[in-house]
């Protein structure tokens, strides 16, 4: 039982990371990752969506007829995203304005319907919630890494506008890594997102190979 939960966690965070391995949800990943705070905001919203949609799909799974499961998943996910959008609009207004169109577009993140289909519709509630959390954190982790890379290179800062997410106390969290004039503009433009994501995937694969070289080979089973 315990090993099941740790497997769910390690799958979500590393072995089956939705952004770096499954390559799902790349549209918001590439578009919003120009600063750490934007990345974190979208990552958290996506994580919350994953948890809630997995929770609903798993708890309603006896009532979901197999032949209409996809429309029902879409309905549930769209409802969850709309609720999250309303909540952000009410309590995180500034961040909502920046993330803008990408909040409703969480609906189209294939990672969410993917987890509903592959995991939540076949598992009990607790593992499904954990799966949503792990997949969401794995996705956020990739987003924040890419966001840091692009913000440091492109703007020479880190954690700029942290107050959008953490309130007024976070206004002075911004770290100036180097002077704005010597920043690499390419990093915050769309090509920078593709290059950064490519480097991240390469880094992950390299680490994976290193780890495998030191361990005896075991067959891997993804779910």
């Amino acid at each position, binding site marked *: 039982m315990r090993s099941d939960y740790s497997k769910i966690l390690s799958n979500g965070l590393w072995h089956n990371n939705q952004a770096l391995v499954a390559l799902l949800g790349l549209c918001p990943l590439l578009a919003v990752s120009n600063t750490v705070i934007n990345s974190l905001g979208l990552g958290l919203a996506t994580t919350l969506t994953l948890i809630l949609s997995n929770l609903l799909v798993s708890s309603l799974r006896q009532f979901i007829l197999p032949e209409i499961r996809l429309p029902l998943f879409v309905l549930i996910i769209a409802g969850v995203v709309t609720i999250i959008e309303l*909540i952000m609009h009410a309590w995180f207004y500034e961040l909502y304005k920046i993330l803008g169109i990408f909040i409703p577009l969480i609906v189209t993140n294939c990672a969410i319907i993917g987890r509903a289909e592959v995991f939540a519709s076949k598992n009990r509630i607790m593992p499904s919630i954990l799966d949503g959390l792990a997949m969401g954190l794995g996705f956020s982790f990739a987003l924040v890494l890419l966001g840091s890379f692009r913000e440091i290179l492109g703007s020479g800062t880190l954690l700029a506008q942290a107050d959008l997410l953490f309130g007024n106390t976070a206004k002075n969290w911004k770290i100036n890594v180097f002077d704005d004039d010597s920043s690499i503009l390419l990093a915050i433009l769309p090509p920078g997102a593709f290059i950064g994501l490519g480097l991240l995937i390469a880094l992950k694969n390299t680490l994976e190979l290193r780890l495998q070289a030191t361990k005896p080979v075991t067959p891997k089973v993804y779910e």
Partner: protein
Amino acid sequence: MIISPPIHAALRIGLFSFIIVGLVSLVYHGTKDKIADNERRALLQSLQSVIDKRRYNNDLVHDKIQLQSGGQAYTIYRARQAGKSVAAIITSTTTQGYNGAIDLLIAINVNGTINAVRILNHRETPGLGDAIELKKSNWVLSFNQLPLKNLDQWAVKRDGGNFDQFTGATITPRAIVNKVKNTALFFQQYQHEIFQ
């Protein structure tokens, strides 16, 4: 796998829709006042970026009219001090920029000078065209207190006018200058309707 009759599937979808819509409308009713308040506050904040709040005492956000001119709709907020007109704040959009629409706020004083211009939204190239933002450069302040005279000479320097362009980016400032000029012409034409 036993295929259930289509009517079951239809009823099931209906039931699910009912539940989900119910949940969404609950949240909607719980958040709508807060959202409306946020929108009002954000609008007021952007309006106050083009007019000093000591210069008016009316309910700026709600004192608005909409006018059509040349196929474009303008929303105009009217600042008044004790019932006397002070300035008109005109929202305007240009699509002549480098990347998508640019939304502007242009405040014009009742005496026919520009009070201030601010860019609300844009997606111009970071590091080049985004110098139209006050955060990035002071360029947009060059409109401040400009009288609406010799409007035909309002252009960027490359087009023979008086406004600076940016190194490597002429299209963006040209779009802004042209839009402010067109809005000024619109103001001169409809001044009476605006301050009714």
